[in-house]
């Protein structure tokens, strides 16, 4: 057989490399989302300023924050590019579709979640831009969203959040997107672990269930906040 060496370029373009990189970036983003969710939940702390304190602490990390943000951006871009390439490849690989198609069940891990990864992904990508514009680049200290934390004037992100989630578009749009995130993770976490070869056959059903639980937890962890605010909480 031909002695073909694999370098990084051919690796990342190969069917194996694409899946492994998608898996690694996906898991990285999952980890971020999980931390983000935990941070959000500080909103429910009895200490009214806990959320602003958490936000402020993050903002004051300086260069470290920049590094993390650039890293996240890179992960997001790689994840998107590979996801789109895989999708286009899949379309090209079956030019004529079946008239009738259905899963046989059994060992199959095919689900609505697994078949809509590209669409939940695209929606999440668009949402991400919208979300960052709304909050990260939304109104800040200069616009009057100021609060005092330990004697220091900081951005009142809590107020911004409460105001935003009192609008029906945000209050219901966000939970819907978070449900889609849950779906994306439901297949994504399992798929990433399978791609990385971490799934032994005996563990497979367990990991598949755990992925579903994590997906659901993250979705719920995110979507309670907007709904809670909309229905009068946190005012």
């Amino acid at each position, binding site marked *: *057989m*031909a*002695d*073909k*060496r*694999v*370098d990084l370029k*051919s*690796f990342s373009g*190969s*069917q*194996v*490399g*694409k*899946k*492994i990189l998608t898996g690694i970036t996906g898991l990285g983003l999952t980890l971020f989302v999980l931390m983000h969710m935990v941070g959000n939940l500080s909103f429910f702390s009895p200490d009214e300023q806990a959320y602003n304190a958490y936000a402020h602490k993050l903002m004051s990390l300086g260069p470290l924050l920049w590094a993390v943000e650039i890293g996240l951006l890179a992960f997001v871009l790689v994840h998107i590019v590979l996801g789109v390439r*895989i999708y286009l*490849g*899949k379309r*090209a*690989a*079956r*030019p*004529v*579709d*079946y*008239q*009738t*198609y*259905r*899963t*046989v*069940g*059994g*060992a*199959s*891990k*095919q689900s609505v979640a*697994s*078949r809509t*990864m590209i669409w939940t992904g695209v929606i999440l990508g668009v949402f991400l831009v919208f979300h960052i514009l709304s909050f990260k680049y939304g109104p800040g200290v200069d616009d009057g969203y100021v609060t005092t934390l330990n004697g220091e004037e900081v951005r009142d992100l809590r107020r911004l959040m409460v105001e935003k989630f009192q609008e029906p578009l945000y209050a219901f749009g966000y939970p819907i997107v978070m449900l889609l995130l849950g779906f994306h993770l439901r*297949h994504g976490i*399992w*798929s990433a672990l*399978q*791609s*990385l*070869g971490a*799934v*032994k*056959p005996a563990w497979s059903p367990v990991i598949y269930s755990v992925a579903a639980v994590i997906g659901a937890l993250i979705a719920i962890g995110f979507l309670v906040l907007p709904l809670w605010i909309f229905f009068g909480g946190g005012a």
Partner: protein
Amino acid sequence: MSKLMTIHLKVWRQASATAEGRFADYTVPNVNPHMSFLEMLDVLNENLTLSGEDPVEFDHDCREGICGSCGIMINGQAHGPNARTATCQLHMRDYSDGDTIVIEPWRAKAFPVIRDLVVDRAPFDRIMSAGGYVSVNSGAAPDANAIPVPKNSVDEAFDYAACIGCGACVAACPNSSASLFTGAKVSHLALLPQGSPERKERVTAMVTQMAEEGFGDCSNHAECEAVCPKGISITAIALMRREYVKAAFGRQ
């Protein structure tokens, strides 16, 4: 004597690779439940022949689930509804009187239709030629018992070696990926000491060829495992990926 059934079929008819295809409706009366699915198609073809129509072409040979020739989408499922069953092993007792069954060929860019339900699976042969073997010339082998192989390694290798190359994995995969087929051969040979010396070259060559043939990427839907007549596990795909990473980043 079993009760005879009437079965309605919607069958994909396509005169040649370049011709337009369409569905045709047929009815097969007097279907015995003990008939195999292919025997039911035989009856249809006998009827078509006598009525002056061209029979429905489908590949078949051993009719006992081992040669991998047969393979059609039956009501949207590769090889039909039963686990670990090739089309030829499916029996009409799984259907009821009056049922309508939709029959389509495997659909993938890499498996172009030749006629009706017959497709060209030559890409599988090319993936095998790329590296699915052990380089040992006839006569150059040491005594068969010179290298003991742990029983569990052989048993696992066998599970992957059982692949019949039918293409159901590709047909059922939403992405038309050939990862299970390729992974099964990579895994079979990687698990045995005889296949180890060439494992890096093998996995690299086979994975490259698989992509060149126009199969899609694997998205871990695991539909392939569910439809595989031999029940080959997607662990084969995980093993293939591990082998590939080792080939890329392991010590040369």
